[in-house]
């Protein structure tokens, strides 16, 4: 009752012409930022922050939040069409999205991504509205040991969900974690593995590696087979998802929304983790896990919903505690601080217009995004009509310009080129390079959490098992590995010798 009244009040704030305009502007810019590889929501928010200083605090936060969740809509576009993630949260969308595009089903992939994003976005605002104070307290329980265990579990799920062998995925994860160690150690300030090169002080650019492994490698692979000039011609009739697509996507969308929202609350790169947890879950639940990676619509619907829901979750620590857990929300907090609105536990009481106005604007913004993005599907899909010998040099150019524009570093270009060749070779050897990229994002945070956890316990590893949340997550990781190992062993035993199977549950994964 109280909530309904507050929400109505929020809509009275959010529906003023000025705020509607800023909301529209925010989600529009967010979509653009999401579509363009190289510039993510953080970059967009940061660039526009100074323009908000003359606005009302509500308008400022409405616009900046619009960019944040709007970017999650656009991110899938390049993943699906050209296999280059628009930002890190859309890496997973490449797996099945791009395969769908190759089968001429880019339209349904993009449409379902937009609809899933809408449903997830709306649900997460609902969750934010009803559960914020409660969940904020849960987020505080996530100290370094819990964060570390969560990332261990995340990486195991990542290995598990891959399209090929778990062992190969593990190798890629370790490679990614190793690459993540290059650079100045964030806890001690020591330079590691930089070989005296200042450019490497900041670490190996994750963006350069991602663009190389996905963009450049994809082009190299395609150049090989240009002889078979299979052009994907999208027909207008196939733009929208079929009834069957919808039937298969609804489950993943709702599950993705839940997973994304809950993981989004946790500090760090949670919107990225949420995508592969969602993908892993869908693959596990599917009756046809072997078809994942070949263009299953569930593989697009789940993760794309999850990353949107995660933005709603990420607002919780920021709005309920006044502690931003991700750089994007931190920048939004600054926008409020500068207006003298201090986000903190009392925000809801002291500035209800900000809190409820923002909530209402997020409902409105998600509707706007859906209206904006569905017609864009028809527009973007035309990209596939461009003959490949024009498209590929163009993509290559965008990759190089995009990577260079971030740090203006020539080293990054070399890293991308090397990653491109490495990606090509890895794909030839049937290695999926996605875990490298995701491990590189998580690596620094995971290492930091591990070391901080050990500092808390005076070096005792027991702390990861004695704290319940951490222990549960580690147990989950071990269980997943055990289930997998049993599956492998059973496969190895049953095939050559038929008998001697152990009496363990018959739910081992189908691929090894």
């Amino acid at each position, binding site marked *: 009752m109280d909530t309904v009244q507050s929400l109505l009040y929020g809509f009275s704030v959010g529906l003023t012409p000025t705020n509607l305009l800023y909301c529209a502007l925010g989600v529009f810019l967010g979509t653009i930022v999401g579509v363009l590889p190289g510039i993510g929501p953080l970059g967009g928010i*940061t*660039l526009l*922050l*100074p323009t908000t*200083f003359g606005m009302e605090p509500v308008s400022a936060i409405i616009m900046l939040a619009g960019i944040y969740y709007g970017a999650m809509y656009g991110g899938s576009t390049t993943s699906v069409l050209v296999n280059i993630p628009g930002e890190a949260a859309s890496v997973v969308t490449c797996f099945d999205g791009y395969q769908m595009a190759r089968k001429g089903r880019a339209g349904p992939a993009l449409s379902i991504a937009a609809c899933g994003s809408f449903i997830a976005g709306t649900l997460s605002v609902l969750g934010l509205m009803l559960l914020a104070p409660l969940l904020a307290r849960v987020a*505080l*329980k*996530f*100290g*370094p040991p819990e964060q570390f265990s969560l990332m261990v579990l995340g990486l195991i799920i990542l290995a598990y969900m891959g399209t090929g062998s778990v062992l190969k995925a593990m190798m890629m994860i370790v490679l990614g974690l190793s690459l993540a160690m290059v*650079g*100045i*150690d*964030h*806890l*001690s*300030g*020591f*330079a590691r593995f930089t070989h*005296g090169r*200042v450019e490497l*002080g*900041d670490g190996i650019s994750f963006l350069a590696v991602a663009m190389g492994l996905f963009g450049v490698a994809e082009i190299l692979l395609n150049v090989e087979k240009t002889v078979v000039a299979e052009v994907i011609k999208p027909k207008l009739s196939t733009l929208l998802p079929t009834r069957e697509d919808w039937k298969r996507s609804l489950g993943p969308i709702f599950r993705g929304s839940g997973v994304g929202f809950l993981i989004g609350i946790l*500090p760090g790169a949670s919107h990225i983790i949420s995508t592969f947890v969602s993908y892993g879950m869908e693959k596990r639940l599917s009756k046809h896990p072997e078809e994942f990676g070949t263009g299953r619509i569930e593989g697009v619907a789940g993760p794309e919903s999850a990353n949107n829901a995660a933005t709603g979750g990420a607002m919780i*620590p920021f709005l309920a*505690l*006044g*502690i*931003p*857990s991700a*750089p994007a929300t*931190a*920048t939004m*907090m*600054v926008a409020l*601080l*500068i*207006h*003298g609105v*201090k*986000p*903190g*536990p*009392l*925000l809801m009481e002291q500035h209800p217009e900000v809190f409820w106005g923002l909530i209402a604007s997020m409902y409105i913004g998600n509707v706007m995004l859906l209206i904006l993005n569905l017609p864009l599907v028809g527009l973007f899909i035309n990209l596939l009509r461009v003959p490949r010998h024009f498209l590929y040099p163009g993509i290559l150019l965008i990759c190089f310009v995009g990577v260079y524009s971030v740090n203006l570093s020539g080293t990054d270009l070399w890293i991308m080129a090397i990653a491109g060749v490495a990606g090509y070779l890895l794909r030839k050897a049937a290695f999926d390079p996605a875990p490298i990229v995701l491990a590189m994002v998580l690596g620094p945070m995971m290492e*930091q959490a591990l070391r*901080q956890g050990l*500092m*808390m316990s*005076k070096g005792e590893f027991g702390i990861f098992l004695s704290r319940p949340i951490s222990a549960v997550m580690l147990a989950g990781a071990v269980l997943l590995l055990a289930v997998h190992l049993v599956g492998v062993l059973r496969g190895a035993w049953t095939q050559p010798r038929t008998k001697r199977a152990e009496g363990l549950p018959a739910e081992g994964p189908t691929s090894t």
Partner: protein
Amino acid sequence: MKLRTPIVVGVIAALTSILVPEARAFPTKPITLVVPFPPGGGTDTVGRPLASVAHQHLGQPMVVINKGGGGGAVGAQYVANAKPDGYTVLHAINTVTEIPQVDELLGRAPAFKKEQFIPIGQVAVTPFAIIVNAESRWKTLQEFVAEARQKPDEFQYASAGVYSTTHFMWELILRATATRVRHMPTTGGGPIMMAVLGKHVDIAHCVMPAVCAPQVEARKIRLLAVTSDKRLPAYPDVPTLKELGYDVTHSIWHALMVPAGTPPEVVAKLRQGLRGMVEDEAFKALMAKLGERIQYMSGESFEKFWDEDYRKMGILLRQLIKK
């Protein structure tokens, strides 16, 4: 004479535009302000309002980027090695004094050197507060000190990183209070507050008042002391460390710096621009809302201050590290 001055200036400007086009034109594109800490921390909340008024005084916007890590080393090193064209400016704080000397004392290759920077000027000075979770049993700093003396290495404080300025501040406090408290480095003010609220550490500090105030108001944290030399007007009940008998004062100075080798005209332009920025009413209003104290010092005066600060800190660091 008066009439001619603009013409002379015009001619000189036209000539320099031919001879040194970049300098005359400076700035022709947005300037990057590198904040060497994660967003939302105490440095960020001063850097962003400052950058917001840059356009009127420099003719180009200032874009803030956060390069956190290494207690400020990552961002400072980035600027030290950036192209000295005035387009990459460091939002420096005390760490720029400390890091190179620590590197030297530990015998490792310095991330950057003091000589690699030219100061543009000081913007503000920010004190810290010593805080505990509001549910903590310690109502005063003396209570904590008394218990920590009995149980050495039992409790844990959070800093913004190993050999960061707050790490040194804590070392000074621990010496002054004759306690041994374990150290948990994090990467900045946001994570530190999270650790206090989540009770993952026992005691910590926070920047006054931007990060502290909302949590104090909501009774989530308790202020035990402030690190400034005088009590803060907004918190007249909170004692200074000195009053409690611990002879430590420590505040963060905020100054802008550019890489050495930046052309003098560009430095002059930036210094002039900064003076305009700190006197900008909009900036003053923003800082007042944040509760931050503007304390402007020109580039020239700051150079002298910095030399002295560097020397004093050097003596202290030698004592701390070679203890």
